[in-house]
């Protein structure tokens, strides 16, 4: 058990370099004026 650092999330970006890109996820409005999602808020649809 680490004493000084707690990892709250391990991330998955490197893995998705090769597996992602299916495009089935929801569109995301970057201005969020429509609140249909900025990209960081999304969940993978796979």
């Amino acid at each position, binding site marked *: 058990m680490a004493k*000084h650092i707690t990892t*709250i999330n391990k991330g998955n970006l*490197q893995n998705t370099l090769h597996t992602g890109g299916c495009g089935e996820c929801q569109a995301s409005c970057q201005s969020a004026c429509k*609140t249909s999602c900025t990209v960081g808020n999304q969940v993978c649809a796979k």
Partner: protein
Amino acid sequence: MNGLYFVLDVNSGAVHVLDGLAYEAMAVFNGVNDKEVQVALGSKYGEGEIVEVLAELHELKDQGLLFAPEVTTPVTFREKPLVKSLCLHVAHDCNLRCGYCFAGTGDFGHDRSLMPKHVAEQAIDFIIANSGARKNCEVDFFGGEPLLNMETVRHAVSYIRKREAETGKVFKLTLTTNAALLNNSIIEYLNSENISVVLSLDGRREVHDAMRPYADGSGSFDEVVAGAKQLVDSRQGQSYYMRGTFTAHNLDFAADVKAMVDLGFKQLSIEPVIAKEEEYALKEEHLPVLFSEYENLAKYYLDQRAIGQGFEFFHFNLDLSNGPCVAKRLSGCGAGHEYFAVTPDGDLYPCHQFVGRDNYLLGNVSEGIKKSKMTEVFRQAHVLNKSECRECWARFYCSGGCHANADLFNATIDKPYLLGCELQKKRLECALMIQACLTLQKGQE
């Protein structure tokens, strides 16, 4: 923030909470310079604990959770884009005259008009023809105010259902409304067709009415709240978002989110107004107050959860473990290559905010995209190709920000709107703090 220190490892997406010693060590540590860290911290901390911290940092590095290698453009992103989403402007007209409306109070700088049924059909055929093997498609009914043209909305939905059956595609439908015209018949229809709804309310009555009046100048708060409540109750609080806009007139916007909570709404968002010269425009000098306000909102969010009265705030919903892939984080909103807006005449623009900017007219649903070079410009305008974004820690969370805002402020989509960037980063910091607090609380239970 909130008594916690964080590290976000940008290229892996890993998030760590650090104690004070580890935090100070990270200010010096670059993965290979242990001696420098020991010298820098030696006068303040004991040798043993510095060695402990360095061991933990090296372990994270070995696991790929710290100093992960730079992310490059994925192969899948280099393929031809597929159209996945359309914003149908079924009405270039509106029953309100909002002070900050980017759509010129509904007409987008042109005549007030409604989309005919055949244009909606052509738009749906356009998305099906250009979505390739992709199964999930999306249509947002937008305006102006889309409830002013329910005839075309109903016709388009019927046509979508017919085409779904023929093609095997699945359409997710949304409708963005100011809520003032909602009634029993419309609400029943939206529920029966499983249409998600985005509702506009700016929070406190005086804030809302000052910016969102009817054409005669009277406030719309009462009708909006009544309509929104009826809709939300009728669908058991599901499949909606209530979103507001804040301006220089209500820098204390957390009070407006609280007002929405007090009215009984639970799925909320509030967005900074986009304006350049207007007296209500947000300016750099407002940033310290706005940062503090986001922190207030984050604390309120956690407090409400703690007492069982939690609500969703759109920008704080960060799924750290199952977020989007790199390709999605590069394509962002997809404006101009995966996502298009369609005017009542069938004209195609990169997104709803570009409508009316004539140099961005890309084609028409009857003929398809005519400016294919511009769609490629949009596709390549991602964070790894923009100099300001390439170095920014938030690049895989904001995807480079809104192209329409970049164009408005900088006359190019390759240079982001920096005030928006600052606010985005603050929201992300708050979201990370919230995720850390919730994860740590769970660990203690």
